[in-house]
């Protein structure tokens, strides 16, 4: 990941040297960073921590592209201040795969079903789907559609996304375990 480079004058203006320290875990790893109080969790993840998988599609909570999990619950990272992440456990798309790089069942099924086209909504979709399956391991198609209703996709018509989530649940049921 490329380092964040700041102009030396950046922090000197508008009292923005008033950065605060945040300690949290991101994808299981402890992370400490300082951030201006007005920064969103989305901007902090993307440009302070360097995890750009989480996308900015609207920055006002309308599209769901920035969905991450905070203590397991799905959150629009653009609507949460980075400071509020202090002490919390954040999960992003980069944390879905296992330590050895093995794909999460949702990632595998999204690939198999062709559930991504341009890919911009995909990270948010995956995180929302993960939250759904954690709560409801065997959702109906309607439940999947309603769970994903806050995540806009403009390419796929949602057909293959819904299919991928349903297939993941089915696969987990056959293996007798809920997906991670």
């Amino acid at each position: 990941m490329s380092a964040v480079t700041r102009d030396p004058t950046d922090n000197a203006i508008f009292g923005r040297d008033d950065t605060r320290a945040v300690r949290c875990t991101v994808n299981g790893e402890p992370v400490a960073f300082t951030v201006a109080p007005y920064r969103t969790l989305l901007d902090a993840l993307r440009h302070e921590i360097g995890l750009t998988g989480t996308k900015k599609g609207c920055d006002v909570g309308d599209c769901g592209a920035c969905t991450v999990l905070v203590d397991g619950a799905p959150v629009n990272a653009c609507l949460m201040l980075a400071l509020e992440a202090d002490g919390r456990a954040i999960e992003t798309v980069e944390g879905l795969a296992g330590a050895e790089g093995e794909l999460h069942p949702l990632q595998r099924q999204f690939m198999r079903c062709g559930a991504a086209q341009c890919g911009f909504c995909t990270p948010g979709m995956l995180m929302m789907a993960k939250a759904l399956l954690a709560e409801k391991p065997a959702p109906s198609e309607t439940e999947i559609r309603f769970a994903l209703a806050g995540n806009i996709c403009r390419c796929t018509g949602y057909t293959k996304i819904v299919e991928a989530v349903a297939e993941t649940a089915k696969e987990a049921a056959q293996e007798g375990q809920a997906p991670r």
Partner: protein
Amino acid sequence: MSAAALPGNGLDAALGIVGTSVRRSDLAEKVSGSARYTADIRLPGMLFARVKRSTVAHAVIRRIDTSRALALPGVKAVLTHADVPRVLHYGSPMPRAASCTKDQYILDRKVRYWGEAVAAVAAVSEEVAEEALALIEVEYDELPVLITTEAAEAPDAAQIHGNEPDREALPGNLVAPPVRVARGDVERGFAEADLIVEGLYEGGRPTPAYMEPNASLCHWDEHGRLTVHISTQTAFMVRGAMAEVLGLPLNQVRVLADHFGGGFGAKQDLFQSEFLCALLAKRTRRPVMMEWTRKETFLGGRSRHPVKIWLKQGFKRDGTITARQARLVYNSGAYGSHGPGVTAVGTSSLTSLYRCDNVLLEGRCVYTNAPIAGAYRGYGVVQAYYALDIQLDEAALKLGLDPAALKLKNAVREGDIAPSGHPIVGHGLEDCIRRGMQEVGWASTPLGSSPDRSRAAPPKRPPQGALRFGWGLGCEMHGSSAYPGIKEQGNALVKMHEDGTATLFTGTAALGTGAHTALAQIVAEELGVAFESIHVVHGDTDIVPWDIGAFASHTTYMGGMAAKLAAAEVKRQLLERAAGLLEAAATDLEVRAGVVRVAGTDRILSVRDVMAPGRGIPSPHLVGHGSYSPTKSYSFAAHFVEVQVDVETGQVQVLQVVPVHEVGRVVHPVAAQGQVEGGVQQGIGHTLSENHEIDPVTGRTLNASFVDYKMPLAMDMPPVRTILLETAPDPGGPWGAKGIGEDPIIAIGPAIANAIFDAVGVRFRHYPITPEQVLQRLREV
């Protein structure tokens, strides 16, 4: 090289890799979060740019004062019209004249729509840049605001353009000379008709609403060379426009376009901000990132052209169409963008789909002070076929015929002359209609033989409470490629390495369709090697061969054929080399699954062994170049739709869609289905809810967000049962393959409007058809 002359372009060849849903190469990056989009990039010393947008729709800037903004700590540069080169350019960097209009400056003294860029700032952070925008003072001398084409075409209307020295002078607010298409004799045709149907059809202003807001990142090196990272469909066109406007040789501009989050046609254009980004980077001598907000994608982006179509047709009692006359007026908004192209393609599309010998069509494109309309999936044809297909339904009712039978009777067939002037290949449309009728149980009633309006559609569900149900059929055809409007070209390079693996270098864009996977399949198929042994390099104008870009449903058709030609050349070299090793004539060799064989024998050598360096002989390095300029092929579709109308709320819900598409040859079934499903989704949105709303007095955008601009969500989408046919392969595409990108958005609209009529007996001739309008019309009847 003509495609027909290409050896091995067998339309009926049995293929092993093409036609299977191999693992898409881009998806691993997309599901892991590692796929890189322009706004993900951070460079050392990078500044952030923001654009100041006008708060009036039509005015001359009297005074613009940037001194307070420049004094703000952290602001590094501010640009206004006084600071940028005054070069008139094409808003879209398409090949000129035929499609686009040269009518835009980077920044102008005159403002032509609400939200037009009037200044730009580069600062150390987005927040400082944003703050600086508020400190720029602009005073305007306001001019009359013309939002509708009627206002703009009034005899005394203000001129929105007209003083630009390089612009062809046209009367009034015309973007381009009107398009006129005449075939046969409409007067005689109408005289021969037993029935004349005529109506006014109107299209709203849907917007592509791609998920990734526009972004560009520019930096210059010590030699004055410009690098542009950008979210675009047309990297080489961006390079050309940047070079032209900034006065640089082409090899001094490098455009990098990796993954990007959707474009749907609109990201063919340049939007002022890319030039501003480059100029800010030049002035500050630092990298500059220009990332739009979602709101800006509405204000400064591109929509479909709002349209008014007057359409009149004559019919014989047996359903024969005797004459067709139409006037189409497209609202271009403040700049021409693709107006001329959209008008030409949309207008001429009415010569076809349903056969008619006597045709008289006139299409006009008019400047207004609305936001800019441009290229958007379906390119003028969405509007035209919405009108045409609904009117066929109206005629069927009046003639007492089944709409499907009427459409079948008049469907274009093999040998008919297409809008492009080319003869149609195959009976694709007929095949689509018949197959769909079979699929949904739409009885194939012979014309005129069934009673009462011959509603042969699938059995209607009986009303349930306030719910009424109905079926509708909509049809379309669309060209792969923009020919003859422009002459396109795709190029590909294939390199085969010492171990038998190969790399495809392509200039086609990574639009998200899976096109690069399709191209790799084509290369693997042609070379006779495994799909996994092909790697695709794209998105860097310094490296890949020139390509016109991704639009006009032509990537697989044109880029695929270029890739096939390049692979064929490498295969020729490979077999020549193998011939020496196998002591056989190259013409006796065949290669399949990575093995070269002397035909009919068991003398074999793996491709890897053929390519292995010999003793003391340097490693070979096979390179093939393929260049392809297509003419035209047409794909076809028939969409069958069931809707539910709530007569108490006016809410229309699409219950199921059966889209049947004839595409010549399916290269990747899952990706092709994905195109259809996504097109259906956008089409449902356009028909029922999506409209970029403009205040008719001020020209101000009223709904620039995803809450106020309502697109279909996961729970709004019905089941979509896509059927892909390969009955009319076109020799111009790889193994007969044609386009699929634009087709699915065209037929769904009229299918929904026709289904609403079937459900409640109310005819809608516009889109979007909102619940309020449905309720109002239901009360009237």
